[in-house]
């Protein structure tokens, strides 16, 4: 049978199933195949905090959404064009996100009375007209997989588990994906068990062949490669990029990286990744708690390492006293907060950007630190390098605010030349700096950076004591002098405030926008996509995005005042908006959503259209 081939410019597919169905892996493999083809990609995993919620229930549904296109895209897509539903729970949990006319591929084997009842379906939605607005493809995924593996020497359980490869094979056929990387992956993954390699490859091929032969799938699609900047790419998640950024910071500074960390979702993957790079001198310590993690990192910084600690919101709260000590000691320290929905345990696997206030202000006393936020998964690499640069140059703690969306999402990353990365080399103090030529003044500052000397233990002649007690200017001796304290508090504030950071850039291709959308962190993609949408419809809107939240770019006030209205969308209740209003006296519109999910471009577009109407 000859299949029709249809060209598409973009597709959004969501793989959904039970936590044990391997949907994250399936999505990941499909993404990798798609990357090989040269499409632009953006992905969004969505999984429950429970490792294995009861099988077949709504809380147990895990999904992976991938958006790919023949042009550059900014988000994982608002709504899927295709849903792969491995069971009734996956169908029910995701159906509301589907636009009418979307394709649904369901695993009919799982639509048993018992599984339907688990999620409250009185009758099977496959048998009534509740899915009438969609194009439903019923596929007996499980039984066909088991059938395809009948000749294979694997247990029934292992055969059944290969059904995700059947689904992947089918989808790879539907979208004409090159699958060599998946075959290679299976060989690596099951290297110790060749029978599983054979079974999974057979399941994959069975899915592919099923697409080719069945009449249910009459159309095959193609999405041509995107026009992207020349260079070598890889698909990367934010957590992986951030880890590599820290490794790169170690190489470019010539300092050992020391990570102190305590396991916490969604930051643990950074600890896992960094623990693999001992060859480059990276030392990781899984500490007894969050406080020890940052304490050990600070101790390592004191000794001349690049001290790093990685965590999520609840961990930052525990670390706050030590971060204040680092402010007083004026030592380099990078604190990574992969934000998740709070307060308290909140929704550990869901995203939010509600730790901005804590990052800016969450310490006792006047304890300013630098704050940086990456805007996308690949940007985490460069943001980590920038955090290290500021920490090392200005001898200060730097808070790096990632979030679950960028941490677990992925996109193509144009690999940088190592030589093009910033030079982060530092000079440790090596000789007395007092006028008499013999005294060492640990708090005598560099007039340009206001940084104090980094005199590491082991340096003869520079023995000195530092601590949390207020220090006298220059000598660092304990001081209760009122004027000295006032001076030191103001100096610590000035140290951060005067760090030179790049100007904020405004994207306003039409040049006549009267409304500026200001964002920070992971909202970059949805805001950008919404602005593009408006522009395609002939409306003018400007976009600016903050990477540096402390200090803020010097030109920001001027930029904000150049527009009639400033809109600030945030996944919190207006934390940046408060800062902007207070600092620049700009009557910004705060648009908020805290659902644990990123904004969709569509909702931002609708909101911005309303604002544009009223300017």
């Amino acid at each position, binding site marked *: 049978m000859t299949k029709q081939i249809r060209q598409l410019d973009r597709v959004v597919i969501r793989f959904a199933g039970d936590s044990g169905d391997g949907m994250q892996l399936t999505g990941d493999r499909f993404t990798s195949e798609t990357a090989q083809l040269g499409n632009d990609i953006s992905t969004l995993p969505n999984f429950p905090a429970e490792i294995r919620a009861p099988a077949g229930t709504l809380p147990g549904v895990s999904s992976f959404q991938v958006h790919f296109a023949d042009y550059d895209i900014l988000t994982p897509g608002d709504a899927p064009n295709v849903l792969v539903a491995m069971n009734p729970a996956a169908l029910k949990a995701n159906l509301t996100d589907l636009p009418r006319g979307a394709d649904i591929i369901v695993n009919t084997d799982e639509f048993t009375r018992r599984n339907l009842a688990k999620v409250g379906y009185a009758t099977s939605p496959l048998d009534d007209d509740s899915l009438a607005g969609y194009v439903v493809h019923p596929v007996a995924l499980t039984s066909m997989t088991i059938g395809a593996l009948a000749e294979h020497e694997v247990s029934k359980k292992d055969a059944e588990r290969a059904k995700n490869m059947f689904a992947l094979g089918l989808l790879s056929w539907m979208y004409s994906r090159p699958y060599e990387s998946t075959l290679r992956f299976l060989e690596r993954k099951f290297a110790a068990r060749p029978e599983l390699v054979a079974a999974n490859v057979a399941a994959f091929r069975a899915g592919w062949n099923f697409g080719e032969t069945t009449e249910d799938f009459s159309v095959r699609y193609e999405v041509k490669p995107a026009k992207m900047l020349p260079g070598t790419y890889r698909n990367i998640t934010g957590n992986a990029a951030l880890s590599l950024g820290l490794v790169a910071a170690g190489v470019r500074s010539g300092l050992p990286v020391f990570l102190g960390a305590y396991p916490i979702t969604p930051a643990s993957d950074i600890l896992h990744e960094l623990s693999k790079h001992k060859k480059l001198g990276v030392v990781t310590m899984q500490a007894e708690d969050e406080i020890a993690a940052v304490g050990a990192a*600070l101790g390592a910084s004191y000794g001349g390492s690049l001290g790093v600690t990685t965590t999520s919101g609840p961990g930052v709260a525990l670390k706050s006293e030590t971060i204040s000590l680092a402010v007083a000691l004026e030592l380099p320290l990078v604190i990574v907060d992969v934000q998740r929905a709070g307060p308290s345990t909140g929704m550990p696997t869901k995203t939010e950007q509600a730790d901005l206030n804590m990052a800016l202000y969450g310490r006792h006393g006047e304890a300013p630190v630098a704050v940086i936020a990456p805007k996308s998964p690949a940007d985490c690499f460069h943001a980590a390098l920038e955090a290290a640069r500021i920490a090392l140059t200005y001898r200060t703690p730097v808070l790096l605010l990632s979030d679950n969306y960028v941490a677990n999402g992925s996109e193509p990353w144009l690999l940088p030349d190592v030589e093009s990365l910033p030079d982060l080399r530092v000079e440790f103090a090596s000789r007395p700096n007092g006028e008499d030529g013999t005294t060492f003044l640990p708090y005598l500052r560099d007039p340009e950076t206001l940084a104090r000397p980094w005199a590491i233990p082991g340096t003869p002649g520079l023995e000195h004591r530092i601590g949390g007690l207020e220090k006298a200017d220059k000598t660092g001796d304990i001081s209760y002098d009122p004027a000295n304290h006032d001076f030191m508090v103001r100096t610590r504030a000035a140290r951060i405030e005067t760090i030179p950071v790049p100007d904020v850039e405004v994207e306003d291709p039409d040049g006549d926008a009267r409304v500026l959308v200001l964002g920070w962190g992971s909202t970059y993609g949805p805001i950008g996509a919404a602005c593009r949408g408006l522009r395609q419809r002939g409306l003018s809107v400007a976009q600016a995005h903050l990477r540096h939240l402390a200090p803020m770019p010097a030109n920001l006030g001027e930029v904000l005042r150049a527009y009639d209205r400033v809109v600030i969308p945030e996944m919190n209740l207006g934390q940046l908006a408060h800062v902007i209003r207070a600092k620049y006296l700009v009557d910004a519109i705060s648009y908020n959503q805290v659902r644990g999910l990123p904004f969709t471009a569509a909702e931002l577009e609708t909101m911005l259209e309303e604002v544009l109407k009223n300017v």
Partner: protein
Amino acid sequence: MSEPVALKLTAKDFKSDQEVRWCPGCGDYAILAAVQGFMPELNIPRENVVFISGIGCSSRFPYYMNTYGMHSIHGRAPAIATGLSVSRPDLSVWVVTGDGDALSIGGNHLIHALRRNVNLKILLFNNRIYGLTKGQYSPTSEIGKVTKSTPVGSADAPFNPLSLALGAEATFVARTIDSDRKHLQSVLRAAAEHQGSAFVEIYQNCNIFNDGAFDPLKEPATRDDFLIRLEHGQPITFGKDDQFCVVHPPGGFGLEVRETAATPAGEIVVHDAGVADPAYAFALSRLPGLDLRNTPIGVFRSVTRSSYDRAVQEQVAAAKAGVDQTPEQQLAGLLSAGDTWTIL
């Protein structure tokens, strides 16, 4: 290897220019003088010695040592010192802490430093009171302690610091007394020689808020009958006339004090700090009564176990062995690892 050069340092070399600000008569003065007097023995250049403390009276200690030093935050010194020691195994890292700092707010860090066997020398000044906050009871105060925060007496039982350290798998555990400089320095010497965590409890008098807490161990009239001076390889006898001894009664779990005259010599326990099973040192740590009778001092336990610092550094060294690429080349390889594609 050549013999290390004698540095010819003196106690004076370890005195910083800072004015010592403990209360007159505080036991901390004696400990400071003993440490400063002992340091030259180590023959370690001053720049390679670091004192890290938490918060409390004792934690002012680093300011007075002319070495590197950090006065950190309450309870966290072992954590900070761990990061320093693991990343800088070339340094001699000392932690100075108190009963509140180490056993109350910082209890978690203390036990984990001991469990890991980080190469730290931990000096716990135990005065059984909160001094810097002006006299509240501490986790080593005796039950029923009347203080500002417990006007009718404390209701909670104290920790036995040595029992706690032994429970946390400490490889070196010792006790000494502020007023006995010779003994204090002998314990410091043994601690400094130990590879891994050395935990030293120093009974220290707070003459303002808990004066005389250890008097029975110091007064000439009582001290010889109260103190058990542990010496490796020697039968444990004590008292003015060695009239008491320590035995391990058959069938029992612990150790007991008996009269020497009524005990066959073969039943007297011969002290062995190297016993692998911490139960022996634990039993020693349980001998003292509430009135401080039968208080052992000296090295309870000194056993060998790989230190965390060394194990970590060995992993790094093993990973680096045989690598012939520059860090930049390795990084370039790392960045382009996995499935990549090229756009021309």
